[in-house]
C-alpha cells in the first residue's frame, strides 16, 4: 500500500525546475516540449508561406533549408518524443499505484539534457553561418565537413545527441517503474492500457536510441578529422544506424497516444477497454516488428533486402488492426459515448491515423515506394501519422487529464472549436500533398515551376496551415481562461476507471493520500463502482 505523510511543497520556479517529483518533472518536460511545438509551428508556417505560390521568395534557398531542417528536427527530437514520454513520467506511477518513479533524479537529468540539447540545436540560428541545413536525417556525405562546414551542423549534432540521451533516460526510468513499483495486486495483466503502451514504447527506446547516439557521435568525429563514414558503404552504414532509431521512434511518438486514446474512449463509452489482453500482446508484437522495418526507408538505395523489409513492414498491419479493432470495439460496444472534447480528439485520431497507416502500405511496397520516394507524398504520409495521429492523440490526453493535473476543467466550447479548426486545417494542409507528391512534386524544395500544375493545391495547403495555427491560438486562450477562472473538477470528473482518478486533483507529493482500492482487474475504479452499485441494489 503506498500511503505516505504529506510534506509541505516548495514553491517557485526553481522548486519546479529542480523537483524530483515525477509529476512536476513530467509537467516541466511537457511544457518545454510544447514551447518547441510552438517554435517549430512558426517554422512550419514559414515553409508553407514560401510554397504558397511559385516564385515566392520569402526565404532564400539557404534559409529555407535551415527552416525545414530545424522544423523537422525540433518536432521529432524536442517536441513529440519528449512529450509522449512526459505523459508516461506523469501518469505511469499514478496508474500503477506507485508513490514515485524509479530514479527520479535520473529522470530530472533526462529532462535537462533534453532542454540543453534543444537550446544547443536551436542556437545554430544565431551563429554567423546559420543553423543546420541537412534535414532531420543529416545524411552523410551531405552532413560532412566538405558539404556542411557551418557551425550550426556541429551544434545540431551535439544538441540532438543530448536530446536522445535525455529520452533514453526517460524510457529507462518509466519501464523500470512499471516493472518494479506496481502496487500489490497490480499484475502485468492488470496495468491500464496506457501503461501497457508505455511499456511497449520504452522497450523500443532502449535498443533503438543508442545506435543513433553512436551514429551522431561518429558523424561529429568524422567532421573533426576522424575518418569514419568516408569509406566503401560508409554512407549506407550511417543510414542503417540512423533508421534503426528513426523508424521505431515513429511508434515511440505514437504508442503512448494510442494508450491515451484507449483510456479516453473506454471512459466515455463507459465500459472496460474491449480486447484488453489482445491489445496488450499486439502492442508488444507491433513494437518488435517496428524494430525490424528500418530498411524500408532505404529501398531506393538498392542495398537492402527489399523482400524482408517489405514483409515485416506490411506485417505491421496485423497488430495495428487489432488495436484499431479494440478502440472501435470499445466505442460501439459501450453505452452511447459522451462526446466531450477529449472524445472528439480521440475520434479524430482514429480517422486520421487510419489515413496515415493506409498510405504507409504504399511506401512499404518497394515498387510503389520507388515512385513516391522523396516526394510530398511521403510528407503527407508522415504528417497524417504524426500530426493527425500523435498530435490529435496528445490533445485528447491533455483535455482528458487536465482536470487531474490542475483540478480544473478546460472549457468544452473552446475545446470543440480547437478540435474543429485542427481537424479541418490538418486535412486542408496535408491531403493535397498526397496528390502533389503522386504527381511528382519533390520534398525539400523552396520553389517549383509555375507551369507544373502544383500552384492551387499548394495554396490550399498554406491556407490549411493558417487554420491549424488558429486552432493553436484557441487552445492557448482556453488554457489561460481555464487557469485564471477555474471550474473545479473534483477527483474523478469523468467517472474514469484507473487509479490516477482515485487520488486528489492535483495529486499530493506521494501520489495517494488514502489506501488504494482492491485491484482485481485493469479497471479498479469501475470494479469499485459496480460493487457499490450491486451492494446498493441488494
Amino acid at each position, binding site marked *: 500500500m*503506498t500511503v505516505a505523510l504529506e*510534506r509541505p*511543497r*516548495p514553491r517557485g520556479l*526553481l*522548486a519546479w*525546475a*529542480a*523537483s*524530483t*517529483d515525477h509529476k512536476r518533472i513530467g509537467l516541466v518536460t511537457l511544457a518545454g516540449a510544447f514551447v518547441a511545438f510552438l517554435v517549430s509551428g512558426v517554422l512550419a508556417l514559414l515553409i508553407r508561406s514560401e510554397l504558397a505560390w511559385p516564385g515566392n521568395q520569402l526565404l532564400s534557398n539557404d534559409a529555407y533549408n535551415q527552416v525545414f531542417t530545424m522544423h523537422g528536427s525540433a518536432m521529432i527530437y524536442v517536441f513529440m518524443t519528449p512529450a509522449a514520454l512526459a505523459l508516461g513520467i506523469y501518469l505511469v506511477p499514478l496508474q500503477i499505484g506507485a*508513490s*514515485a518513479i*524509479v530514479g*527520479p*533524479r535520473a529522470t*530530472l*537529468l533526462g529532462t*535537462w*539534457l533534453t*532542454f*540543453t540539447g534543444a537550446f*544547443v540545436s536551436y542556437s545554430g540560428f544565431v551563429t554567423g553561418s546559420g543553423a543546420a541545413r541537412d534535414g532531420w536525417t543529416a545524411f552523410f556525405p551531405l552532413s560532412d565537413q566538405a558539404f556542411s562546414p557551418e557551425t550550426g551542423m*556541429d*551544434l545540431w*549534432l*551535439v544538441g540532438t545527441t*543530448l536530446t536522445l540521451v535525455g529520452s533514453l533516460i526517460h524510457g529507462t526510468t518509466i519501464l523500470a517503474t512499471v*516493472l*518494479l*513499483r*506496481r*502496487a*500489490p495486486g497490480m499484475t*502485468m495483466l492488470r496495468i491500464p492500457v496506457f501503461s501497457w503502451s508505455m*511499456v511497449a514504447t520504452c*522497450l523500443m527506446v*532502449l*535498443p533503438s536510441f543508442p545506435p543513433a547516439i553512436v551514429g551522431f557521435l561518429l558523424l*561529429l568525429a568524422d*567532421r*573533426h578529422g576522424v575518418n569514419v563514414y568516408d569509406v566503401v*558503404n560508409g554512407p*549506407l*552504414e550511417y543510414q*542503417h*544506424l540512423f533508421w*534503426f532509431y528513426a523508424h521505431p521512434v515513429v511508434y515511440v511518438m505514437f504508442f503512448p497516444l494510442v494508450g491515451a486514446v484507449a483510456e479516453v474512449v473506454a471512459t466515455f463509452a463507459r465500459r472496460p477497454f474491449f480486447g484488453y489482453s489482445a491489445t496488450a500482446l499486439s502492442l*508488444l*508484437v507491433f513494437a*518488435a*516488428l517496428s*524494430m*525490424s522495418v528500418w*530498411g524500408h526507408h532505404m529501398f531506393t538505395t538498392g542495398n*537492402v*533486402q527489399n*523482400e*524482408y523489409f517489405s514483409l*515485416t513492414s506490411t506485417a505491421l498491419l496485423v497488430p495495428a488492426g487489432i488495436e484499431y479493432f479494440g478502440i472501435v470495439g470499445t466505442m460501439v460496444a459501450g453505452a452511447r459515448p459522451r462526446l466531450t472534447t477529449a472524445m472528439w480528439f480521440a475520434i479524430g485520431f482514429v480517422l486520421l491515423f487510419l489515413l496515415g497507416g493506409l498510405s504507409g502500405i504504399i511506401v512499404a511496397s518497394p515498387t510503389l515506394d520507388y515512385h513516391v520516394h522523396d516526394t510530398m507524398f511521403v510528407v503527407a504520409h508522415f504528417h497524417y501519422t504524426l500530426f493527425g495521429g500523435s498530435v490529435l492523440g496528445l490533445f485528447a490526453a491533455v483535455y482528458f487529464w487536465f482536470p487531474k493535473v490542475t483540478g480544473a476543467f478546460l472549457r468544452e466550447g473552446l475545446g470543440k472549436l480547437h478540435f474543429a479548426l485542427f481537424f479541418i486545417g490538418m486535412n486542408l494542409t496535408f491531403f493535397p500533398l498526397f496528390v502533389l507528391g503522386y504527381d511528382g512534386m519533390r520534398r525539400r524544395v523552396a520553389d517549383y515551376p509555375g507551369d507544373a500544375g502544383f500552384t492551387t493545391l499548394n495554396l490550399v495547403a498554406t491556407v490549411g496551415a493558417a487554420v491549424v495555427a488558429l486552432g493553436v491560438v484557441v487552445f492557448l486562450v482556453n488554457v489561460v481562461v481555464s487557469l485564471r477562472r477555474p471550474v473545479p473538477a473534483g477527483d474523478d470528473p469523468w467517472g474514469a476507471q484507473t487509479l490516477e482518478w482515485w487520488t486528489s486533483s492535483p495529486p499530493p507529493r506521494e501520489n495517494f493520500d488514502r489506501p488504494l482500492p482492491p485491484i482485481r482487474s485493469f479497471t479498479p475504479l469501475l470494479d469499485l463502482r459496480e460493487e457499490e452499485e450491486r451492494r446498493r441494489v441488494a
Partner: protein
Amino acid sequence: MSRDWVTTGLWGLFLLGLTVLLLGWERSWLQLLLLGGSAALVLAGAVILRPLDEHGRAREQPETSLGTIVLAGGITIALLGVAFGTWLLLPGLGLVALGAGVALREVRR
C-alpha cells in the same frame, strides 16, 4: 520472485525470431548486429530483472535536486568541447564532478 521478466523476455524472443528470419536473406554484418544485438540486450535485461522484486518500495528522495541540473549543464558543455575545442572539456567535466558531488550529498543528507 516476481514474473516481471516474462514481458521483457517475451519481447526479446520476438526480436530474436525476427533476427533469425533476417538470416534467410543476404545481409550486412551491421544489420545483423543491430537487430541481433537488440535481442541479446533485451534478453540479458530479462535475466537481470528475474531476481529483482522491489514492489512498492521507493527510496526517500530530496524534494529538489540542483546537483542534477548542474550535472546536465556539465555534460552539455563537455560534449560541446568535442566540437568546439578541448578548452571546453575542462569546465564541462568540472561541472560534471560538481553536479555529481552535490547530488551525492543530497542523498546522504
